């Protein structure tokens, strides 16, 4: 019996922290204070921003990670000058314009057009949500985006959208890009407040 209990407990513990759904903006409508609501909306966005589907290609240094446990990319790859791998082995050496299910039917090589690492200035791995929030709003570090452009990016960018269509063998990011876009819209409209550091 004790062994069974341990097994059940282990099974629950094995459920990754990111195995969660994503609430839309309406779920936060009853937070009266607008800034508090904005922070709550960003916290919800954080479920996506800190999901392995997103974080794996937002490393702070070095090359990408992969898998839900975010292990180092195999084969070993480096960022390269253009965030696109090394001369002789670019991202496109393996990653194509769309996900490709492997011929043995198990797993897939992820792909999208374009496909590359996020620039170093957009590296999030190991950072707190407060740090990511400050970073994501800063045009010096977000690729020169205004908040409106950031909304467009989150709501409609194809590579962002890949997070919800990651190919066989990968858990998608929570919710949908549509909900993520709605959350971003509501966060911006409530002042784009960041969580406390």
């Amino acid at each position, binding site marked *: 019996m004790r062994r069974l209990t341990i097994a059940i407990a282990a099974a629950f513990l094995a459920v990754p922290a990111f195995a969660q759904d994503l609430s839309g903006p309406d779920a936060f409508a009853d937070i009266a204070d607008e800034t508090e609501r904005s922070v709550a909306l960003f916290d919800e966005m954080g479920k996506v921003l800190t999901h392995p589907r997103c974080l794996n290609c937002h490393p702070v240094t070095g090359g990408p990670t992969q898998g839900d446990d975010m292990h180092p990319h195999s084969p070993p790859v480096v960022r390269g000058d253009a965030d696109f791998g090394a001369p002789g082995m670019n991202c496109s050496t393996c990653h194509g314009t769309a996900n*490709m299910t*492997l011929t043995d039917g198990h*797993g897939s090589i992820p792909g999208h057009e374009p496909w590359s690492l996020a620039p170093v200035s957009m590296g999030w791995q190991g950072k707190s949500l407060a740090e990511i929030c400050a970073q994501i709003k800063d045009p010096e570090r977000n690729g020169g985006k205004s908040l409106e452009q950031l909304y467009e990016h989150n709501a409609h960018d194809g590579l962002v959208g890949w997070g919800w269509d990651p190919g066989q063998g990968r858990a998608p990011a929570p919710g949908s890009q549509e909900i993520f876009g709605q959350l971003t819209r509501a966060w911006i409209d409530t002042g784009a407040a960041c969580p406390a550091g």
Partner: protein
Amino acid sequence: MTAFTVNGRDYDLDIDPETPLLWVLRDELRLTGTKFGCGIAQCGACTVMLDGMPRRSCVTPIGMIEGSEITTIEGMEGPEIAAVQSAWTAIDVPQCGWCQSGQIMSATALLQQVPKPSDEDINNAMAGNVCRCATYVRIRQAIHDAAKTLEG
């Protein structure tokens, strides 16, 4: 139908677009210089050039290469491949040889982009090409030797 060229020759093939390019090269076109190693882009044995850039053909569905130019080991030309071939022969790089087609394609791609690669450049470019005979020391030496040849 999928239209593309291989080694300068035009093809227009009626094959399932999900079929990996490697299958088409070896089984349909009988270009067997490109090898199957792992089938999951982990070993590099199947490397070809896709529009001039190295590409693992085992994870390249032919539906993706419509209108593209493919070059296999059989069709490689130019100073870099000539230098690589000479350097490979001079010090007998291969042991069993199975992976060497892919090694040569990646080494040539590296030299086309970085004429005088450092050890780090070689590490980064060749990390995806596995050799079970562990000829890595000779591969590195041959790439340096080929680079010296290219310097003139």
